[in-house]
């Protein structure tokens, strides 16, 4: 039996990019929790790093008499942010494009901004959860004393926010560079090298100066430095390259990367690999 289906006679304007961004944040989070491999990787990786660092270097102290676990918590937290933003977004987006998920969004009329807001929303929620787990384990298992002042936590908040937004924007930007395989491998390799250069695995001030200078171009170094300013005592600032935490420069560099990433996204974002 044939049911008569009529087109809309009056058609309200399609929902705003913000409304679609909210809907997509919910969707992305639902897809995230339904992918056990991604959940375990995102949440377990920083914890495993913490366990390894704290076990291998147990008893050693770092500049200013800071326990090892406390010193490297900064680098691990920054890596975690890069993982859930830059790496997760870049890899997922390239795969979604290859699977034709983005082509569906295109024909359904999704504003690119709405899609991006969905990614950013998902990144912010997963990043906050991941950091909460990491800090809880650090405080309870490894006796890392977390900051108590409001100012420290405000610094933590803006560094996390800027870092996650920069990671999301740059992940979106690099995802257009090639096939999902190439993008996934490229991001992983780049992330590992960047971690060595940025003082995640070593004390930054002990790295050769040319490595410090290269690292200073990229966001991760600033993210780690911002995190050190949260988790290390004020006295440790003297061991920084500039002898201070350089909050202003950190904010500027991260913001600059957000702008650069947005420009690249606006020019290169494609729903499909070919048009």
């Amino acid at each position: 039996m044939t049911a008569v289906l009529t087109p809309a006679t009056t058609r309200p304007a399609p929902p705003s990019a913000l409304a679609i961004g909210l809907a997509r944040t919910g969707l992305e989070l639902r897809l995230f929790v339904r992918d056990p491999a991604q959940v375990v990787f995102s949440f377990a990786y920083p914890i495993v790093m913490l366990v390894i660092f704290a076990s291998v270097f147990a008893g050693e102290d770092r500049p200013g008499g800071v326990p090892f676990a406390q010193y490297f918590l900064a680098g691990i937290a920054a890596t975690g942010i890069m993982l859930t933003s830059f790496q997760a977004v870049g890899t997922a987006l390239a795969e979604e494009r290859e699977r034709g998920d983005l082509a569906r969004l295109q024909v359904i009329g999704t504003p690119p901004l709405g899609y991006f807001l969905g990614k950013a929303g998902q990144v912010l929620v997963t990043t906050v959860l991941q950091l909460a787990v990491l800090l809880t384990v650090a405080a309870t298992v490894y006796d890392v004393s977390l900051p108590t002042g409001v100012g420290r936590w405000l610094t933590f908040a803006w560094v996390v926010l800027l870092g996650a937004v920069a990671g999301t924007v740059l992940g979106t930007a690099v995802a257009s560079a090639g096939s999902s395989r190439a993008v996934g491998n490229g991001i992983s390799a780049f992330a590992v090298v960047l971690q060595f250069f940025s003082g995640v695995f070593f004390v930054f001030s002990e790295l050769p100066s040319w490595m410090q200078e290269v690292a200073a171009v990229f966001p991760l170094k600033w993210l780690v430095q911002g995190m050190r300013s949260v988790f290390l005592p004020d006295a440790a600032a003297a061991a920084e390259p500039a002898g201070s935490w350089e909050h202003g420069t950190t904010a500027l560099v991260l913001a600059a990367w957000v702008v650069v990433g947005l420009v690249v996204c606006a020019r290169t974002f494609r729903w499909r690999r070919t048009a």
Partner: protein
Amino acid sequence: MTAIQVAPVPVPVGQDPAVRVRGLVKRYGGRAVVDGVDLDVRRGEVFALLGPNGAGKTTTVEVLEGVRRRDGGEVTVLGEDPATAGRGWRDRIGVVAQSTGVGDALTVRETLDHFARYHGTARPTAELLAAVGLPEAAGTRVARLSGGQRRRLEVALGVQGRPELLFLDEPTTGMDPVARRRFWDLVRGLRAGGTTVVLTTHYLDEAAELADRVGVLADGRLVDVAPPGELGAQLRRVATVRWTEDGATREVRTPEPAAVLRDLLAAHPAGEVPGLTVTRPGLEDVYLSLVGATPEGETR
């Protein structure tokens, strides 16, 4: 299968066509896969683009949908150029494509509920499930659907936003005969409600069953446009007269079979002409001739 014949809505006269294409060209690596296509689709009609694989059907439709750039020609779809049209335009068209993903981790119902939020107005999920015959699979994860069920979900997503113009690219691929019939009913229901439908298919029966007019595409060119019963009017006029003479089959192709028969009967005054048949080409023969693939065993 159709219990109630729905009277077609008369196509409004004097309105702009839903789709107007002039001289459309699309090249891949220098080779023109669409090579100067002119096309008009009237409002309210079901128009089928019929052709073999690689004829340029999907490319043509993708240009009309605004997801592929063209290299030449003019295209107007619902009054706008698809290459530059915005979201308001896109919400008026529906697309069932071949290469769009649906995601795997959501259930059918969750998928429909989610995508409902992208449209200015959306058909209720229950209505969509019923229309494509998926109510019993509503709680199934998309990853576990069969190929045909997945296709039906894609069709549901295509009509979700109550489009004025619906593009269906090889919509029944992977469907079993029952699902296919149900899909045909869905298209008839859409047509009865006034939706313009452009569908591509390489199934002749599908084009004959659904389409008001059929455009036959071969090697990137539109070789004929007509109602399914009138396709290849020239070719249809040619009848084939066959008979047996001296143990061999003789064959004459002619637009005037009666004249041939008179001669034959005169040559056989005693009575029967052995093995005599007069055939006119069916839709399939006409189609194969149009796309340049002569049916096996037939002389031209």
